[in-house]
């Protein structure tokens, strides 16, 4: 069952611009995580935000969480061509499982 839905499905920007991706979910969560997937590779964990947190930073990444709206956003600042990848949100609702969304494909052009 899909819990997270990312928006937009695809995003195309120029190097140096900021990229914002959104995730909406349906049920209560204990945390929300963002992952990145390069073409043909596995997913790599980027950042985890707990349900009692509102914002978290890691390098050029900024994640916000609004539990009242059941939504999260991932902001990548000063994008680089190497940021080209698919980005997935995943919600944790307990007992170890994560439920992944369908992803946002980000293309950063030089």
């Amino acid at each position, binding site marked *: 069952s899909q819990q997270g839905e990312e928006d937009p499905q695809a995003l195309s920007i120029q190097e140096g611009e900021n990229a914002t991706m959104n995730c909406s979910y349906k049920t209560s969560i*204990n945390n929300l995580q963002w992952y990145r997937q390069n073409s*043909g590779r*596995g997913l790599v*964990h980027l950042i985890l935000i707990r349900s009692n947190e509102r914002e978290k930073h890691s390098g050029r990444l900024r994640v916000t969480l609004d539990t009242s709206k059941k939504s999260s956003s991932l902001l990548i600042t000063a994008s680089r061509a190497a940021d080209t990848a698919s980005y*997935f949100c995943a919600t944790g609702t307990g*007992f170890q*499982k994560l439920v992944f969304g369908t992803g946002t494909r980000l293309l950063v052009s030089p």
Partner: protein
Amino acid sequence: DVKVTQSSRYLVKRTGEKVFLECVQDMDHENMFWYRQDPGLGLRLIYFSYDVKMKEKGDIPEGYSVSREKKERFSLILESASTNQTSMYLCASSTLHTGDRKNYNINQPQHFGDGTRLSIL
């Protein structure tokens, strides 16, 4: 560095064959997962395991089985492969621990292998 290794990057099998996909992790993680990834559908959980010999069905277990005889190894088995099982299969692992304690209610980050692209002809 943490590592999840899947035995094959690409695999081609025939309809009706029994197919084994192997996954090994070197992080002493309790949890291991098998997903399939299809365009437009994202990642869907097939099975997961939180301990040796323990398994739980995910969202799409039909046509699959799993085996976890050792902590580091989690195998996915397609009992009789069909063309609709052509997909990218991803294995992942995660710890149960928060600090020194096991915590069954916190979803820790998952570490993924590079996937096996399986084609059933």
